[in-house]
């Protein structure tokens, strides 16, 4: 039962709350209790701050042999996304085709279902990333409700 383990991190998992060292200003996501630069001096002093809402794909892969529990999502795109300040975060890229993903692409965090503990267990939600802008297809009003 891992519901509790993630519950205590909802602020970060649901809203991407990061931590910031008040001495040197470095921001960490996933959040850290100790600043990597200031170390012991920062213990107990780290502040919670929101992450920026825009990032760029730094690298990505299309996963064909999925992690356990993700079989139904295969193939899925995993990426490392870089935010302002050099903060890099791992997550899936969704709401687009795998072939639309490229290094340098702008993405924003979105809220999705990550995994569940079986049919009777807790559902874990968290962040994934989606394209910042939509490539809009032509609006097709008449008749053709078919593929393509």
């Amino acid at each position, binding site marked *: 039962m891992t519901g509790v383990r993630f519950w205590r991190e*909802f602020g970060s998992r*649901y*809203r991407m709350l990061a931590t910031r060292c008040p001495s040197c200003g470095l921001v960490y996501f996933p959040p850290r209790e100790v600043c990597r630069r200031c170390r012991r001096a920062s213990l107990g002093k780290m502040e919670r701050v929101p992450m920026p809402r825009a990032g760029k794909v730094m690298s990505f892969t299309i996963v064909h042999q999925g992690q356990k529990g993700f079989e*139904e*999502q295969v193939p899925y795109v995993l990426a490392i996304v870089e935010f302002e300040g050099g903060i890099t975060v791992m997550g*899936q890229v*969704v*709401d*687009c*085709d795998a072939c639309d993903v490229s290094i340098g692409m702008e993405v924003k965090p*979105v*809220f*999705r*279902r*990550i995994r569940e503990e079986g049919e009777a267990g807790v*559902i874990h*939600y968290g962040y*994934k990333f989606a394209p910042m*802008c*939509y*490539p*809009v*297809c*032509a*609006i097709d*009003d008449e*008749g*053709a*409700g*078919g*593929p*393509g």
Partner: protein
Amino acid sequence: MDVGILSYGIWVPRHRISTEEIARVWGKDGKAMASGLGVRSKSVPAVDEDVVTMSVEAAEMAMRRSGVAPTDVGAVYVGSESHPYAVKPTATVVAEAMGATPDLTAADYEFACKAGTAAFQTCMGLVRSGMVKAGMAIGADTSQGAPGDALEYSASAGAAAYLIGSGEGVIARIDHTLSYTTDTPDFWRREGQTYPSHGGRFTGVPAYFKHVVTCGKNMLARAGTTAEDYDHVVLHQPNGKFPVRAAKMLGFPPEKAARGLLTPRIGNTYSAAVPLGLANVLDAARPGERILVVSYGSGAGSDAFDITVTDAMARYPRHQDDLVETRIAYRKFIDYATYAKFRGKIQMGRG
């Protein structure tokens, strides 16, 4: 006190399946089905989407363009008939994701396709009574139809969230609301059943039409208006035909019902159907325009709203990427096998 909509947000999943593709699998004439139902395609949620995630997407859009702090939202209600948990509210996850916790009230609603508008009314009452500054009312569904059943062609997924409040920020005033509610067994699902059951043709005249049209007429009487006083009408839309007929019965020409009718392209999003239809109207509405909204939920009941767009709408940000039409146009068609996989309709070996 002007009570109404401060902001709204929407979400429609990207994938689509066409009526013809579903009909192909079940040996039906797809073109005839599409034309008979008035539904060409419907939205399909991805494997990682559900009522919670869609509600959060819609609520985040509503909050983002509202200028209201999440901690000022005193209530969150999510109406759906496909909440991910039978017990554990969607509303608390949404409230947490919004950053509105812990000083608020929250609960989930169920009333077939009108659970979303029931949430509207509750939030209106809480705001008007001064119990909360603002309330978030969400209608969202990832409804399912049994394989091969008529409902499979239309049951789809979507969400719309409305931040209800008062004061200068109100972009669309809700001047009147009234409802019409009876015990009518037109469509139901017992606990533990995967798919709903319905009364076939009984779902028409004694159910949908009786409630929508009576409620609509009652609202016109209450407001002292006729169809001519409104620029738009948004009615519940289980298919592409019923709302056009009901609109006509209320005296509305098809043009006034056009913007609010999304089912032909994205299917029936159940609790999100009327909220999304209204959102599409609001996306292009100008100050002074008046909208009649009548929802319908099986079981049965209708909620009607008399809405007038305010001057504040001219200052409300309606960017291209946030429009209903943009989200509807961003689509990818899938085949029935992929649809069945996404919707969990395939019997998986549990290892």
